[in-house]
């Protein structure tokens, strides 16, 4: 049984590594490359250049190129704007970091506001308690004493 499990795990690991480094998938690349004339991803476009680019990807996959190589070839032809996602390096890294930075700032702002509002609410409650009219307070105490008696 242990041997069987070990073999199954090894087989799964092999399949996983083959998928990661193996043949690129046409549909995946079409979703990651932008048509230069219509500015949508290739899978959303049927313009002449998009059709030509899909053909090119098909040919390069058949020729054994990796996804990274095909993307590099398309960037060389059409520039970096052909990639649906900006590369995670250099100046383009900002496109990934800025939204995270904005999210972090947003969390800090919301937390600060929530903390400030909760403190104000506590203060208002305390103020409301102490703001009871002394005469009314005395009457309430009298009524309570009479009730207890």
């Amino acid at each position, binding site marked *: 049984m242990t041997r069987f499990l070990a073999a199954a795990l090894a087989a799964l690991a092999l399949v996983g590594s083959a998928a990661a480094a193996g043949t690129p998938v046409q549909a995946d690349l079409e979703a990651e490359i932008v048509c*230069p004339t219509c500015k949508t991803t290739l899978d959303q476009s049927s313009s*002449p250049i998009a059709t030509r680019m899909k053909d*090119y990807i098909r040919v390069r996959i058949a020729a054994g190129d990796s996804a990274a190589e095909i993307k590099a070839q398309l960037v060389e032809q*059409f*520039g970096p704007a052909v990639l649906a996602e900006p590369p995670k390096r250099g100046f383009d890294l900002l496109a990934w970091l800025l939204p995270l930075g904005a999210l972090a700032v947003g969390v800090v702002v919301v937390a600060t*506001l929530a903390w*400030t509002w909760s403190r104000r609410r506590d203060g208002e409650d305390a103020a409301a308690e102490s703001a009871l009219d002394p005469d009314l307070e005395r009457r309430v105490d009298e009524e309570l004493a009479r009730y207890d008696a």
Partner: protein
Amino acid sequence: MTGRAKTVGQGIAIAAVVGLLALLVWKLAFGDGQGAAGSLAKGENPVAPAFTLSRLDAADGKVSLADFKGKPVVVNFWASWCIPCKDEAPALQKTYEQYRKQELVVIGVDAQDFRQDAKRFVKRFGITYPVVYDGSGSTLGKWGVTGFPETFFVDRSGRLVGERIQGGIDTERNRAAYAEGVRLALGEAP
């Protein structure tokens, strides 16, 4: 929230809104979304936007519009996948041959295209005028090109003249405007 924090927050919000409004005003006042074609359509004769691009037949060789300073130039934006570009290619070549002695130059700008496809196109149509490659389409915005083919005329002073021709030059709709553009670029009397 303390009064001071509230004031700071409001100040930041107002500054952000004012900044965005300023950007909008600047864009409306100074941004020309239609490039040189927009100015041409208003009846102006803007200076032809400069470019330096690699030659289609040699990636290391560069061609600049400035290289043809003092000469009339026909600038044709095209792509190998565009059907009207195929239809007009013989007429452009004919123009180049016909007016060569008058120093007229035709420059083909192949944009948003595969270089190899463009090379095949040039060979197929026997194009001998200079063709440059602009795969990313970096020149299109400055010129105001919105589709392929489009043709512009530059006179000897480097200014755009005539009309921007949208679509094939060798069509009933565009033939007269094309002839007029060539005439204006050459500086010939009507």
